[in-house]
């Protein structure tokens, strides 16, 4: 045999994994992309391509359609919205492409496997933490809470709100004194919180439906010199210097709740599916959230920070 | 011609119109007899166009009444006017540049009944005779934007004709028309008149009035100054009615061409070619006024564009000593910033001189402008007034002020007296002489031959982008120029 041509084994197959991401603008999504890229880069026979739907259903449907034309070996979809992606993910399945669905349940089980977390559970955890905080502060569960809401109508916003209210509503002396809408965006949260601070003389806890909004609220309170008066609770718990865990470490957030990136599980399933023809994944994987407080922040920071990311 | 017995066809009584503080019409009255050509005269801003627009239903009057054949009528919209048989050619030549010639004629035209669907072949058939009558021999499906300003004037006349009006209001219809096109219009007017159509004719051109009009009504400051029988009056009388005093017509002054041969020309064009010009050669000397004559679309404006670098010169050479200024023919589209003030418009081209490190020295701006305004006899409510509030004549003077401040060695004036009243014209003639006297080289385009003959030292005649003839002022006559412009001479020279 001529030199340089490996003998024996047939040339190794190159696999393509396509990831249809709902958007890459939110830090959580950006972390998903980065983490998945990192995980799959370790596999020499695997190529990852990512598309960004910029929060637009039609764009995402189009992008999945284009992926179907390319016939990748595996498709991962983080749906922008559940109903919109259901049909096109069915088309992918019909085209014999294994599909892993991330975080959002779609209307029909048009996926090989579904990896998600539970926002209602996270909301409940956050609610319980707030109750504990207030009890510690006043000796009994009472106080004023501000809820900083994400884009209305989105699943995460609805369920993180519902879970927390489920708990907080049990204590009549805990009042949600304001629940402004900041569309997940830190800069907006800062402005909305400023107005709340003007109207509310006493605030005990700010519950941001994501970390950036909690941080925005903190910045607003700090500007008025009231940041010590209240504590701030967020959700997402991303690693890295820009993530929520770091903010717990820095003492800005009292707690954050890890909303699992899900891509690590997806990568694990993907690798086994591609390399092991006999592998039959579970239809559904539920990933648990983790509470991050000052007590465990340092170790969590290690766990959740993705090397090479900010 | 005593038409006193004829009944008044259209009567407008005590028409009043205010624009903010300006009283455009102040209880003006006007009456029109069947089958007459009635001149409407007055200085710039006297209210002629306003009256015409009110009669045509496009401007609502604030007060007054209009009656037709003795019965009061309400003209609330242009369509009302059309229904009453009133057609109009607007002074502003407002047409639709991106619609075709045919569309410009049929749009909103009650005499071309259309359902909801467009029928191009019917449009073509309808428009052809009217385009022919005005002498616009062009594809009716060309966009109007391709027309020169003179051709646009013909197009709007064709539109007015197509409306088959009993009363036709013509607001300065010949302001950009050269003699042959104007002649054609006069013939048309005669035909219409013989058919019993009444015509209101707004013009600043005295010779036209005396050629074609039966009566004349003069407006002054929005009020009727008087109505006269044209055959029984004189230009002087009309001018007195218009301006309220005797106007001394400035005598023609000649520059001294004696020194010219010894001198280097200020500007030399040899075999100049652009997209619209072919092999144009001429010289211009210090202190000379060089006239340019030619038919509509003959390339007079194109020459200005070539000299000032607006059009690309494809071959030939152009040498000139000193800057060339260009006063464009369309002051609204090419000249003035309508939302800016008189002061700002006037000093726009010389801000470099009136500023220090980019800062405008406002004191000097005003003090430099003041003498120029006096020289031009420019009147305006205030220097801060937007030019849109000025009359046409004063707007033109603002543009002239811009170039006077700039003081270029060579000035190309493209039809500077278009639509300008007699008094303002006199001011401009005087100015041309003054400029020539201090050595400026002037090129004067005009649609009026008498004006060229009066002001110029030499006259070049263009025909279809070529230089058809050149005359010294002494030897030029209207007839010779017309022959050259219409290329009669060239044809005659051909052996048959």
């Amino acid at each position, binding site marked *: 045999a001529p030199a340089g041509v490996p003998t024996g084994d047939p040339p190794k197959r190159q696999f393509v994994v396509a990831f249809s991401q709902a958007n*890459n603008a939110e830090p959580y999504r950006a972390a998903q992309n980065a983490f998945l890229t990192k995980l799959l880069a370790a596999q020499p026979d695997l190529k990852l*391509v*990512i*598309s*960004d739907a910029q*929060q*637009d*259903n*039609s764009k995402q*449907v*189009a*992008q999945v*359609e*284009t992926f179907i*034309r*390319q*016939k990748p070996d595996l498709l991962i979809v983080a749906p922008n*919205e*559940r*109903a*919109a992606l*259901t*049909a096109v993910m069915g088309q992918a399945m019909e085209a014999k492409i294994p599909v892993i669905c991330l975080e959002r349940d779609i*209307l*029909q089980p048009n996926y090989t496997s579904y990896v998600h977390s539970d926002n209602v559970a996270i909301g409940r955890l956050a609610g319980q933490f707030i109750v504990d905080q207030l009890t510690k502060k006043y000796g009994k569960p009472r106080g004023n809470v501000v809820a900083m809401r994400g*884009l*209305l*109508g*989105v699943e995460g916003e*609805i369920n993180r709100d519902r879970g927390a209210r489920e708990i907080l509503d049990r204590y009549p002396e805990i009042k949600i004194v304001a629940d402004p809408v900041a569309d997940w965006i830190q800069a907006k949260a800062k402005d909305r919180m400023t107005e709340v601070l003007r109207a509310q003389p006493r605030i005990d806890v700010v519950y941001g439906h994501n970390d950036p909004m909690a941080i925005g609220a903190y910045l607003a309170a700090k500007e008025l010199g009231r940041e010590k008066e209240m504590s701030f609770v967020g959700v997402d718990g991303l690693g890295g210097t820009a993530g929520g865990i770091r903010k717990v470490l820095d003492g800005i957030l009292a707690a954050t709740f890890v909303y699992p990136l899900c891509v690590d599980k997806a990568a694990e399933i993907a690798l086994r599916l591609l390399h092991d023809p006999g592998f039959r994944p579970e239809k559904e994987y539920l990933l648990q959230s983790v509470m991050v407080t000052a007590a465990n922040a340092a170790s969590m920071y290690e766990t959740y920070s993705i090397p090479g990311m900010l | 011609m005593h038409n006193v017995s004829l009944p008044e066809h259209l009567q407008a009584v005590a028409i009043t119109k205010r624009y903010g503080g300006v009283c455009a019409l102040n209880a003006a009255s006007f009456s029109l007899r069947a089958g007459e050509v009635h001149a409407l005269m007055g200085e710039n801003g006297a209210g002629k166009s306003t009256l015409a627009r009110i009669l*045509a*239903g*496009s401007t609502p009057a604030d007060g007054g009444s209009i009656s037709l054949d003795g019965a009061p009528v309400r003209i609330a*919209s*242009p*369509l009302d*006017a*059309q229904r009453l048989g009133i057609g109009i050619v*607007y002074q*502003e030549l*407002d*047409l*639709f*540049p*991106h*619609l*075709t010639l045919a*569309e410009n004629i049929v*749009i*909103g035209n009650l005499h071309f009944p*259309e*359902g*909801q*669907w*467009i029928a*191009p072949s019917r449009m073509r058939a309808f428009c052809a005779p009217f385009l022919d009558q005005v002498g616009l021999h062009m594809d009716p*499906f060309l*966009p109007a*934007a391709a027309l020169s300003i003179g051709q646009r004037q013909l197009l709007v006349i064709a539109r007015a004709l197509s409306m088959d009006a009993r009363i036709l209001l013509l607001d300065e219809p010949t302001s950009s028309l050269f003699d042959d096109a104007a002649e054609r219009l006069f013939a048309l007017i005669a035909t219409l008149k013989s058919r019993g159509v009444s015509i209101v004719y707004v013009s600043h051109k005295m010779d036209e009035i005396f050629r074609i009009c039966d009566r004349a009504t003069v407006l002054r400051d929005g009020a009727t100054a008087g109505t006269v029988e044209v055959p029984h009056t004189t230009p002087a009388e009309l001018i007195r009615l218009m301006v309220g005093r005797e106007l001394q017509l400035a005598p023609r002054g000649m520059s001294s061409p004696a020194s010219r041969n010894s001198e280097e020309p200020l500007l030399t064009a040899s075999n100049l070619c652009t997209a619209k010009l072919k092999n144009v050669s001429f010289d211009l000397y210090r202190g000379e006024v060089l006239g340019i004559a030619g038919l509509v679309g003959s390339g007079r404006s194109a020459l200005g564009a070539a000299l000032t670098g607006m059009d690309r010169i494809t071959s030939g050479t152009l040498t000139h000593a000193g800057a060339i200024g260009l006063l464009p023919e369309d002051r609204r589209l090419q000249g003035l910033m309508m939302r800016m003030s008189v002061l700002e418009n006037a000093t726009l081209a010389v801000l470099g001189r009136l500023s220090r490190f980019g800062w405008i020295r406002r004191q000097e701006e005003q003090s430099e402008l003041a003498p120029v305004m006096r020289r031009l006899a420019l009147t305006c409510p205030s220097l801060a007034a937007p030019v849109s509030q000025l009359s046409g004549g004063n707007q033109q003077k603002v543009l002239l002020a811009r170039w006077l401040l700039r003081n270029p060695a060579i000035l190309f004036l493209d039809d500077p007296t278009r639509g300008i009243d007699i008094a303002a014209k006199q001011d401009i003639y005087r100015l041309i002489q003054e400029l020539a006297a201090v050595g400026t080289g002037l090129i004067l385009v005009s649609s009026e031959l008498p004006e060229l003959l009066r002001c110029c030292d030499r006259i070049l005649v263009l025909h279809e982008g070529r230089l058809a003839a050149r005359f010294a002022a002494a030897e030029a006559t209207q007839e010779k120029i017309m022959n050259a412009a219409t290329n009669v001479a060239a044809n005659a020279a051909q052996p048959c």
Partner: protein
Amino acid sequence: MLMLHLPPLKKAQRLVALAALLLLAVLISPTAADGSRIFLQAGNLTDILRQVSLIGIISLSMTFVILTGGIDLSVGSILAFSTAVAAMFLTRGYTTHMAVAIAAAVAASTLAGLLNGVVIATTGIQPFIVTLASMIGVRGLAKWLTSNQNIDIGFGRDLAAEFAAAFREKAVVIGAYALAAAVSWTVLARTVFGRHVRAVGDNEKAALYAGLPIRSTKIAAYLLSGLFTGCAGVLYAAENHQGNPNAGVAYELDAIAAVVIGGTRLSGGQGSISGTIIGTLIMGVLTNMLRLNNVDSNVEMMIKAVIIVLAVAVQRERNTN
């Protein structure tokens, strides 16, 4: 015959831009397992058509609005409003006929367009401001109406599911776009209304002097925009199986871009339906080409920016000669 006011060369240049892009797309297209170019697969080409159909329909009526010298920023919100109304009628038992739901959605959207038109035509406020206001207001209305919720349309055998199944069909969507394009072309080219639209945007003063019905022409243009956008909303609801009060964000930019890339003057009076269609296709082919080649989404944005400018420059370059 049509668009006689556009020199024929111009149309050709627009096609040149599209053709150049198509050629590039073919050349750099990845190949399928059988060696064929994926870009040229019938499935992919019809994908492109389907993907541009919604913006395509909106940009058709946007052409009318822009020709009158206006602009309609509210189309994204009206689309969302339409999806919401359609889904409410379909899923909440208001009716048993899908035609009623569709009619309701389209009527509601048309009404929003009518409101835009009436305010613009009667107050004389700049269309940018009026439609910016209704972009905000109609979005609020859609979200308020649905309490911020998406209204999902399932995959069962109910009315809503049948509706979605029927109207998400590729052939139906592309057919709707083709029909809308044919109607728009005909109306603009062959009707007196179309001529009035061009005339009003070309020179409003002249239109006044000619006694044209300026107000009703403007009102009709915005009404048409509401109508077409409402239809696009119905298709969106079917395609995405939901009424979505957050749908259509920034669609106005895509629609206006298609119109302007197609050679229509933003200040009105000059433009064509064929140009808008080409503009829409340029954007669609461009996106598909970059996606097929798996260009990184950020790099995709940068390349897109350059190609948009180039595509328009190609049209102008020869123009000026």
